[in-house]
């Protein structure tokens, strides 16, 4: 049977955490609502639904976005990663582990968005992206040290109403350090 579609809906395929999901979808559906209401991937949270709180942050083509302002139909063909897909089997992602070890949360509602965002922050920083608090944005300056000020600025799109920011900043710093050590190890392995 052909999937039911009209001019205002489409049969789409979403690639989420390496798995393909086929679903008919009303074009009005946000990626956030598709994840939570249609695919039972409720790790991604709905906070403000206006792009202001970051609770719905997911990775699309490895970049962090707010899924509440992304249309599901526009996400077709992209590689979507949600909090359910960041661990390697039973081994938590280093950012997840750091949030656990350093109590980077209180109620936990904003945590999936914080973690997805932090994963991307660490990648963006490693790629040399400056931020609004970087003294010299020039390309010759190299990546700035990932200070608490840098982390706070880069994570400012994720609100935590419990106010767990102090621990969140520590967790991101810890995860970034272990990420850098991993990269150094890997580079050494390649050199040897």
């Amino acid at each position, binding site marked *: 049977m052909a999937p039911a579609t009209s*001019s*205002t809906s*489409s049969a789409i395929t979403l690639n989420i955490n390496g798995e393909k999901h086929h679903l008919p979808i*009303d*074009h*009005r559906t*946000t990626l956030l609502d598709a994840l939570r209401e249609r695919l039972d991937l409720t790790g991604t949270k709905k906070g403000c*639904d*206006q*792009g202001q709180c*970051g609770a719905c*942050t997911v990775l699309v083509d490895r*970049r*962090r*976005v*707010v899924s509440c*302002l*992304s*249309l599901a*139909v*526009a996400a077709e063909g992209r590689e979507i990663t949600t909090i359910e897909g960041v661990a390697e089997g039973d081994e938590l992602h280093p950012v997840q582990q750091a949030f656990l070890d350093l109590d980077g949360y209180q109620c936990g509602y904003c945590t999936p968005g914080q973690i997805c*965002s932090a994963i*991307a*922050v660490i990648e*963006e920083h490693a*790629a*040399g*992206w*400056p*931020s*609004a608090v*970087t003294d010299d*944005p*020039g*390309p*010759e300056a190299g990546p700035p040290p990932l200070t608490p000020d840098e982390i*706070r*600025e*880069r*994570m*400012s*799109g*994720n609100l935590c109403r419990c106010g767990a920011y102090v621990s969140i900043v520590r967790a991101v710093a810890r995860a970034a350090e272990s990420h850098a050590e991993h990269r150094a190890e890997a580079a050494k392995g390649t050199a040897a």
Partner: protein
Amino acid sequence: MREFGYQRAHDVTGALALLAADPDARFLGGGTNLVDLMKSGVERPARLVDVRDLPLDRVEPTADGGLRIGATVTNSDLAAHPEVRRRYPALAQAVLAGASGQLRNMATVGGNLLQRTRCGYFTDVSKPCNKRVPGSGCPAVTGEHHNHAVLGASGHCVAVHPSDMGVALTAFDAVVSYASADGPGETPLTDFYLPVGDTPHRETALPPGALITHVSLPAAPVAARSRYRKVRERASYAFAIGSVAAALTVEDGLVREARLALGAVASRPWRARAAEAVLAGAPADGATFAAAADAELAAARPLPDNGYKVTLMRNLVVSVLTELAGRDAR
């Protein structure tokens, strides 16, 4: 939300044709503003033409030493681009001062220029607004307007343009290129936004159905010494209450060249030509910088609750120019 059709365009000609097929169609870029406005009922398109896959996602150095920026380049990629950071650092700073990391990954250059004001009356469909419903009135003039315009406004609309990127582009003489059914065209960014007058619903000089394809920056050696500073009500992730993009070169204690644009003070990014005229050739000191700011702000017409912006902008201009002059002296 009104139901809508969705199509993805793969080339510019196709995008124009898809849009032309429906008078209620809109181009969809990153969606960070449009999707939000659709949720609140301010925008009610019958069809979205997704332009994110168009081959307009490159930042290319031009032969004359400038840059040609594709309309679908994301804010993130623009701010991270080595030549943007090297040649126009204030542009990278302006982009990084806007929104959040998530939104910068979604938002595009073309969409940034076409984003709508965040005036609370515009975004609330239960309120009158001349921009949204022409002739319905402007409650902001007598209502909540602490972050509204002090320059170039009219009694019909006192909303400000929210872009940070646009302020730096305005300082550096950006030119907007577009494709339309009648062929390609271009407009300097300083002429892109129409005067408010009694038609605040008419915002840009873009012809109906046209698609922004590129934003070009001419070579500007002065821009290599530039700075964007933004004042807001919290340290990060908020719209400006005032901002400045400035570039300055000083020779023998005199201003050789200056560029200045102001943000969050008008319905468009505000090129401060009166200030630039005062700066040109004058001693690069605090007195000149203050005189330049005063020359520009002489035209300010603050409302009862936003007079602070005139003082704020004066201090901001003096502070940024002083910093740039100091950097030049080193």
